[in-house]
């Protein structure tokens, strides 16, 4: 049973007229955007954070985070970002549940338009739209998404009690998910395209010691087998080209992320993979627009780095506002 109770901090669809000039609009309330919001609020800026789905971002679906400083016993993703959300609201950032759709320019100012056609006029923008999971590369993905294929182990693990499941991937996320799944599933098979895991040592030790976990090395998924629901996953060995079917009822995927940069395509410069190009001040190619966290061209995509980016970008944005006013 889950004892935690999530108290909403969001003032949903708060009435705000577009005449008010804001200092900062932050796109996305993940760890990067919320941290920027905390700093902006404390600096007394008039700041709005737009969020399309739920405050917290990707990490809200993680069962356990062991590498965020200050939590020696680990912390759940939900708990960690709830704290960030409360802190941002406490210092005056307003979180509004709306999806940003377009960014326009009006002189030296920007206008952020939402899906509901609301407009926010602002001096600066911080893009913290993060990333989405890469879809399982099988022809049957759409048919079985939500019917056995899942991208959220914490949400859906309980439906596979005493069943066999596969998890595709070999990084930290895949391994954390695999460990979480063992609390419910009978057997968890990790399907990984290489012959060794990418996950950090500590997680590897844990996963190799778990008797419920098995491995399929050098393998990639090729088909999902089943009628109405998943009965198996066909995998192909990349070395021997051999195919075989794993009898599983659930398939969890953690094979990387794609940046949510559509909204700034054609506005700021992106790299060839779609990540926003930034400098060490987290400035994009357009003065006044900054980018943080998973959506930018960063070497490491983590909560701590997204939060760090948020602090730096907010600092740079404040300097930008000061230089505007000079």
């Amino acid at each position, binding site marked *: *049973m*889950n*004892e*935690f*109770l*999530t*108290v*909403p*901090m969001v003032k*949903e*669809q708060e009435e705000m007229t577009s005449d008010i000039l804001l200092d900062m609009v932050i796109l996305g309330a993940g760890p990067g955007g919320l941290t920027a919001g905390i700093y902006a609020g404390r600096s007394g800026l008039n700041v709005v954070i737009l969020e399309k*789905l*739920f405050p*917290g971002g990707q990490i*809200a*679906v993680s*069962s356990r985070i062991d590498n965020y400083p200050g939590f020696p016993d680990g912390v759940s993703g*939900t708990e960690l970002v709830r704290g960030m959300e409360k802190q941002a609201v406490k210092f005056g950032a307003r979180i509004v549940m709306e*999806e940003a759709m377009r960014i326009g320019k009006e002189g030296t100012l920007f206008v952020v338009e939402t*899906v*509901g056609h609301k407009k926010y006029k602002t001096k600066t923008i911080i893009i913290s739209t993060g990333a989405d999971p890469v879809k399982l590369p099988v022809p049957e993905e759409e048919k079985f*998404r*939500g*019917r*056995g*294929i*899942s991208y*959220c182990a*914490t*949400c*859906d693990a*309980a*439906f*596979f009690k005493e069943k066999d499941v596969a998890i595709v991937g070999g990084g930290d996320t895949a391994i954390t998910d695999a460990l979480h799944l063992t609390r419910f599933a009978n057997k968890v098979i990790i399907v990984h395209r290489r012959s060794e895991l990418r996950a950090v040592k500590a997680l590897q030790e844990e996963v190799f010691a778990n008797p419920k976990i098995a491995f399929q090395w050098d393998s990639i998924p090729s088909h999902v087998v089943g009628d*109405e*629901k*998943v009965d198996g996953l066909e995998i192909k060995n990349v070395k021997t080209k051999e195919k075989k079917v794993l009898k599983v*009822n*659930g398939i969890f995927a953690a094979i990387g992320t794609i940046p949510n940069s559509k909204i700034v395509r054609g506005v700021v410069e992106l790299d060839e993979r779609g990540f926003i190009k930034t400098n060490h001040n987290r400035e994009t190619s357009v003065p006044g627009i900054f980018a943080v966290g998973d959506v930018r061209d960063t070497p490491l995509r983590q909560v701590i780095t997204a939060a760090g980016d948020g602090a730096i970008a907010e600092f740079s944005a404040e300097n930008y506002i000061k230089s505007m006013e000079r």
Partner: protein
Amino acid sequence: MEKLLKEQDVQYIKELFDRDLVDPVELVLFLESEGSDKVTDANSQYLLATEEIAREVSEISDKISLTIYKDDKEKEKEYGVKEISALFIQGKNTDKNVVFYGIPSGHEFSSLLEDIVNVSQGATRLSPASKETARNIKVPVEILVFITPTCPHCPRAVKTAHQLAMENKLIKAAMIEANEFPELSKKYNVYSVPKIVINEKVQFEGALPEDMFINKVLSVVDGS
């Protein structure tokens, strides 16, 4: 039982309620005692916690009252109760048509609080277009939303369904905590949440934006 809500959270909710509540809201909770076939070893803890949550929330504001019916078959029939526990949010824009089956904990606690505010104000936060579409529906609609408390995007589906019901009394909308009702989850092939079932006919997974959610409802209505 130990208090489930932290003092700090009570303070925050109190501020929210003091600011936003207008008219009275009645929480109507259906429970059954041990010995009933609806009470098992697996769910007895859930029932206790659900009662505690309802009690603590109702104590935060004078505008919220709590009525508990225990083993009351007649009242269960009157409300159309399908499972135990059932928590109805009754007020000026609802009529036994907004319900939580199972514990409204985890992320769904925010759905409960938002429902209370919406019912107390007699207004929803749906877009004007969605409101109009909902009000124009002329046939009974039943929406089931399966969730797990650890699913962060599930409240979006629950809130949309409940608000549609607040706009039109022909619409009944229920949250169902999937862990607590494994038989139901099995019956409706729930493998991922949120899973939405409309009039037993249309099923889909995922937290769709409001307009797409309503289109799914309309696809059922138009077909009947």
